[in-house]
């Protein structure tokens, strides 16, 4: 076999001159194949080898987050790679008239005027333009659009590519049309994409709330702890466990997430030289999803000082998880007065959960005020006052706080208060909280993304003068499918199509697992017209008996039985609700009346006595004038007489 590798390379000037360049144009396929050979066999290995040390530096910079080094090494790497390709192409074209790939396919680059091998200058320009074309667009596409099959880099450098082996003719019309079509499509694509990107940037800039939520999603929220310690009255809290204590208080108040607390704990954990009980306490919260690990941390907290606040808090958590409320009370009282702020926040949450609103208010007064925690304290105060039936105070405090809160907290507060006002009756739709909430919602449809806010909005629109029209309009803006179905059910009911409406609600009850399921059930209860219908919902309610919404649904059942005059059943349900948060003053009054009308006068007297002893009977409390019947019966019961 002949050894092909010892054959001399034919120099371009020695090639036969018989063919004119116009007669020996290189085919686009040969040029493409030559390009592939060049890239795979020469350029890629050459470039990878040359840039290898810089790739390593780039990777190292990435690992240690050295941005300047990363940028410099990346730029050097790209420039060096481009330079290597440029040198290779320039040298081969100037010296041999072709690159390795072109040699294999019998192609040569020639000067378009002299028909000879291009000089060093033309080769250098050709390679430079080829690189630019490669970066911007596929370089071989323009081969179809020129009558001599000259790509743009050929046209810039006054060169053309000829074939010694398989010359082809000038491009056909369809080839040019194809190339021009692809160019036009690419141009259109770039234009549309650019406009889209530009518009997106403008939209984002306009919508400040989107920018804020984006920052929160990216984990920037943790800077909340940094902002808090800067405004904290005690300057020592900037570092170490004091800073973690601030984070713990913010976590307890629901201001920061578990992730944020974990970042603070991780930060401190790496720096600590000794063990820190507060860190163990924080870790037990952070790993609450892993009971074993969380308990390991809790067990460790008391290894140092059994009287420390952290140790007592760990015992409180243990008692809390066992629902041993007496023990929790005892432990909280043990550290009252000298307690750290985060334990104070947990104490308030405990008291609120236990419906001990008056104690919660008193406890809040004993804690030193902090700007960062103000939204939490205000929120709790408003809820405590409201549940104590001190409505005016609650309203005044809530409305006064709105100015000091950020957008999310203020919308949250207004929506909660509005929802509570509407629970009392649709006459409250003109209340300040509902008007404030209305303003927020009219100016920011994006807020409907929050399902809680969306549901309060629905509740608000139900009470307006033309609920049907308003709800139909709202459906279009609601992003959550299930809330849309819920509202559609309400609209159907208002359309005098109760059967369809009930079907819609029943479907939601079967498919949903969240608030909507309970709301749908509540609507079905409210739409019930007979004891038989109510009884089926009553047995379903009785079998569930757990969760946050269970007492609210029970309250609806109680109200419905009461309003239909089934006082015995109302009393039976009411007895189970006495220890729940729905047992407010109005509920007690209805209970007294139910017992009285149901013939249980002794029980009515006991309930009245309990009602009188409740915290809501402070001097500021006033009973709505509409409760005249209650006033009359209450007086009779207290005198021991018969109203008839």
């Amino acid at each position, binding site marked *: 076999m002949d050894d*092909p590798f*010892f054959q001399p390379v034919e120099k371009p000037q020695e090639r036969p001159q018989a063919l004119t360049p116009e007669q020996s144009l290189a085919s686009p396929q040969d040029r493409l194949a030559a390009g592939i050979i060049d890239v795979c066999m020469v350029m890629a290995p050459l470039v*990878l080898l040359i840039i290898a040390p810089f790739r390593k530096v780039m990777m*190292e910079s990435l690992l240690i987050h050295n941005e300047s080094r990363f940028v410099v090494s990346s730029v050097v790497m790209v420039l060096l790679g481009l330079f290597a390709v440029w040198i290779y192409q320039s040298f081969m074209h100037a010296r041999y008239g072709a690159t390795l790939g072109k040699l294999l396919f019998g192609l040569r680059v020639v000067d378009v005027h002299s028909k000879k091998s291009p000089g060093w200058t033309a080769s250098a320009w050709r390679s430079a333009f080829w690189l630019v074309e490669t970066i911007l667009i596929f370089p071989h596409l323009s081969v179809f659009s020129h009558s001599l099959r000259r790509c743009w880099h050929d046209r810039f450098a006054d060169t053309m590519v000829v074939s010694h082996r398989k010359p082809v003719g000038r491009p056909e019309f369809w080839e040019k049309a194809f190339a021009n079509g692809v160019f036009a499509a690419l141009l259109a694509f770039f234009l549309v994409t650019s406009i889209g990107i530009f518009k997106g940037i403008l939209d984002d800039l306009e919508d400040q709330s989107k920018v804020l939520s984006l920052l929160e999603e990216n984990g920037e929220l943790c800077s909340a702890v940094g902002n808090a310690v800067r405004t904290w009255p005690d300057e020592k809290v900037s570092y170490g466990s004091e800073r973690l204590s601030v984070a713990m208080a913010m976590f307890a108040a629901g201001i920061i997430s578990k992730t944020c607390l974990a970042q603070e704990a991780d930060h401190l954990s*790496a720096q600590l030289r000794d063990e820190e009980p507060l860190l163990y306490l924080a870790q037990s919260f952070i790993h609450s999803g892993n009971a074993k690990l969380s308990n390991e941390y809790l067990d460790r907290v008391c290894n140092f000082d059994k009287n420390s606040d952290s140790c007592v808090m760990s015992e409180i958590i243990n008692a809390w998880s066992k629902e041993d409320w007496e023990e929790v009370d005892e432990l909280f009282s043990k550290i009252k007065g000298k307690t750290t702020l985060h334990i104070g926040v947990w104490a308030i949450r405990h008291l609120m959960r236990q419906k001990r609103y008056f104690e919660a208010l008193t406890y809040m007064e004993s804690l030193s005020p902090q700007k960062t925690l103000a939204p939490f304290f205000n929120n709790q105060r408003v809820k405590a006052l409201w549940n104590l039936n001190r409505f005016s105070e609650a309203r005044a405090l809530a409305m006064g706080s709105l100015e000091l809160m950020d957008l999310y907290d203020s919308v949250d507060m207004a929506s909660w208060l509005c929802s509570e006002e509407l629970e009392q009756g649709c006459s409250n739709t003109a209340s300040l909280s509902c008007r404030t909430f209305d303003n927020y919602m009219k100016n920011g449809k994006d807020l409907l993304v929050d399902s809680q806010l969306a549901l309060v909005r629905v509740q608000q629109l139900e009470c307006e003068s033309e609920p049907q029209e308003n709800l139909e309009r709202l459906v279009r803006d609601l992003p959550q499918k299930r809330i849309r179905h819920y509202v559609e059910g309400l609209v159907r009911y208002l359309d005098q199509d109760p059967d369809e409406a009930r079907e819609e609600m029943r479907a939601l009850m079967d498919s949903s697992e969240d608030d909507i399921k309970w709301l749908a059930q509540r609507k079905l209860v409210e739409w019930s017209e007979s004891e038989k219908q109510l009884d089926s919902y009553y047995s379903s309610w009785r079998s569930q008996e757990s969760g946050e919404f269970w007492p609210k649904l029970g309250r609806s059942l109680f109200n419905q039985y009461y309003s239909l005059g089934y006082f015995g059943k109302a009393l039976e349900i009411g007895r189970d609700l006495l220890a729940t948060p729905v047992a407010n003053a109005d509920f007690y009054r209805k209970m007294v009346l139910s017992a009285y009308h149901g013939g249980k006068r002794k029980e009515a007297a006991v309930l009245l006595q309990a009602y009188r002893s409740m915290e809501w009977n402070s001097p500021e409390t006033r009973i709505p004038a509409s409760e005249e019947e209650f006033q009359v019966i209450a007086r009779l019961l207290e005198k021991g007489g018969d109203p008839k």
Partner: protein
Amino acid sequence: MIFPFLNGIVSWTKAPVTWMIFILNALVLAFSYNPLLVTQYELEEKLKDDFFIESQGRLYAQFIEANPQFYSPLVRDMSRRVLDGDTKKLQLLGNLATRNKKFIEEGPEMEFRGDQVAADRWKRSVASLQMMKSKHPSYMLGLNAQDIDVWKWFSYIFVHSGLVHFVGNMLFFLIFAGFLETIVGGLAVLVLFLSSGALSAGFFLYFSGATAAPLVGASGAVSGIMAYFCFLYWNKPVRFVYWLFLPLRGYFGFIFLPGWVVFALWLVSDLAGYLSTVSELGGVAYTAHLGGEVIGLFVGLLISLIRGRYAGAEVPAPEVEMYKPIPFVDELVPKRQNFLKN
């Protein structure tokens, strides 16, 4: 796409030793595949545990601080950042720690400061990880810094980390070793395969440093075989099959390149890989490949010197037909061995 083809895969009657080695590799894979999958899954599950990895990162940072002389400036810089409270590096440092022999061996005995719950839990997890590793074929037969017994310098050649790894190595092995066996004989192939494998492991341990991650696979040994073949065919045409992504006549078929081009392409590719890899992160054992290539070339040179002839001058004729025509492909495409005459 271009791929060395030579005479394709030589039949087992012409290259019995090559096929024996292949079958041995296949058997080891077959017997180790299930335990490999099971233990690999368990190991990966453990390494996915954020708490474990982050605790390990924090403890590794303390370990590096106590033993800085054993670590590169890059790792020392990362550990310093972690100890200064940079939590972004925790996961990365934790993963790097898994490969560090010294830390895995001495870490469980060390008294760490700070979070003792995390430290105790990590020590228990490392003990269970070591148990898992003792059942993992790559650790049982592979060469790792914790276990460099002489027999492991050979056993690692026959273990592969999965099907793709096995197919990649064995395809090149069957093509090159099969062809070589028809020229130099089975014993020479066997000796070259084992010696290249063992010595490329030495290259790996010397240049890449001892890590707790095991070295497995026949790539070092296959590199030795390929390098020796290239030495024999230094200036002779070596047949490649190519396809230039165009479904047209003339854009796929065979191409003949001299042995030195083949060797240069492999060498450049492995050298580029080695130079661009951060030693703490490397997954491919480029140094083992380079070691195999150097050894294959060295063996070729040594034999030539002993026999008193220069590289590639005379190659014994293979027992099979040199570049036998391939039906269909040869009929369709022109041979390109005379391309330079155009």
